[in-house]
């Protein structure tokens, strides 16, 4: 469904007023997302996970330099095509709940998303009601965003992303700040989307809960994809994992060893074969 081939992304910064330099945020990153799969992208903050989502959606700042190839359903994902597919075939569940319109009731948020995706007025109403009830939001359909709990607001965003029948859904840190109950419901909703034959990219730092729904996991560090492993490889001592960093990530969980060799930000990853 989506193929990312050696994607490199650089963003400008200005050390002096009139000088521009480039910092590499994503370096030669390759991924493949088949339909019907939840693909988790795991890494520390600042690893370039959210930028990867923006690169796929075409939401990067204008000045960004992008190299490499993005292909969606076999065709190149050019900026023009991204603009055309965004909200129709490609959907993003943003990290920030500020993405909701603060002055709109939840039913309107979802209806408008449906209308933007090309549904007619009555079809949009019907589809919005259907999705709100699927995510147990019927009673909250006339609430404004400030009246929703974090988990409910997140589910409104998921409903908005799904209303368009998008083939690829990217969820950016969907479980942050939710209590266990709400988090499990949000993750179950994402899994359900994948089971409908769509591709789901789950961007998170929360390895443990990503593993409950993910089929495959890509570990990202400093803009590079260190490895992509099936979710089952994260077990025992992590013997089936290829990179040290992925193993450390797994071993650092409180349910596992909760200890690893002392962490240093400068700890070097051995070159991958």
């Amino acid at each position, binding site marked *: 469904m989506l193929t990312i081939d050696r994607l490199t992304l650089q963003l400008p910064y200005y050390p002096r007023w009139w000088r521009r330099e480039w910092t590499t945020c994503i370096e030669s990153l390759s991924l493949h997302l088949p339909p019907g799969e939840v693909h988790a992208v795991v890494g520390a*903050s600042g690893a370039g996970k959210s930028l990867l989502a923006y690169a796929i959606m075409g939401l990067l700042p204008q000045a960004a330099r992008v190299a490499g190839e993005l292909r969606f359903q076999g065709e190149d994902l050019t900026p023009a095509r991204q603009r055309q597919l965004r909200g129709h075939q490609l959907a993003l569940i943003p990290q920030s709940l500020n993405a909701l319109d603060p002055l709109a009731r939840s039913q309107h948020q979802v209806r408008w998303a449906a209308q933007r995706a090309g549904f007619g007025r009555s079809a949009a109403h019907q589809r919005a009601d259907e999705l709100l009830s699927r995510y147990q939001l019927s009673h909250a359909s006339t609430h404004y965003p400030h009246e929703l709990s974090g988990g409910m607001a997140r589910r409104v965003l998921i409903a908005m992303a799904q209303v368009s029948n998008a083939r690829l859904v990217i969820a950016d840190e969907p479980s942050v*700040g939710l209590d266990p109950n709400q988090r499990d419901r949000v993750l179950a909703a994402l899994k359900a989307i994948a089971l409908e034959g769509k591709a789901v990219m789950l961007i998170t*730092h929360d390895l443990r809960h990503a593993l409950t729904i993910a089929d495959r996991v890509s570990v990202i560090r400093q803009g590079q994809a260190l490895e992509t492993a099936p979710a089952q490889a994260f077990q025992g001592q992590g013997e089936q994992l290829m990179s040290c960093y992925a193993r450390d*990530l*797994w071993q650092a969980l*409180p349910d596992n060893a*909760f*200890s690893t060799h002392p962490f240093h930000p400068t700890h070097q990853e051995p070159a991958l074969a």
Partner: protein
Amino acid sequence: MLETHQLSFHFAAGTPLLADISLRLAPGEWLGISGDSGSGKSTLGKLLSGQLTPSQGSVQVDGSPLPTRGRRPVQWLPQSPELAVNPRWRVGKILREAWTPPDTLMAAFGIENEWLKRFPSALSGGELQRVCVLRALAPGVRYVVADEISTMLDPITQLSLWQALKAHAEHHQLGVIVISHDTALLNRLCHQQWHLAGGSLRISSTALKAP
């Protein structure tokens, strides 16, 4: 010894959120508090650190009530470090707000000298969280309330933060209260664990394993 005696709290004209809470924490001990959202975990943390005043009962450190001015012997570490710092101050000024931590401690918390010149917005959440934790460990601080301080960190950063805090707490006989949803984390860290539900504490497990 940090003690509360029949502590109760309610917000204005509300039903009591917390009722008759009594707990004791010895220096050097770790206490975990879990509970659903809205059960009052954070409120209890703020009461223990003197950020909120109890409706009834009191919080005492070594038999005397919490001081209302001057340095607080119980420090509160909030979930979002971004909200706990002045965005117009550089990180160096923020870190040295209460004391000047020695270089060895800065290294233990993985804080790099280069960060001190930056503004908080130029640090990641995990980096800023470590700065905030170290800022709160001034001499004279006896207890720390860590309110979900590691939820937004990846496992390795989370572990490194707890390791550094544990080493410091052991050395200085600091008592730590960990508020978290994550019972696996509490099992790893805490000597005693309580579950907060319906306004009162229930024991979930004591002295599970020496952390």
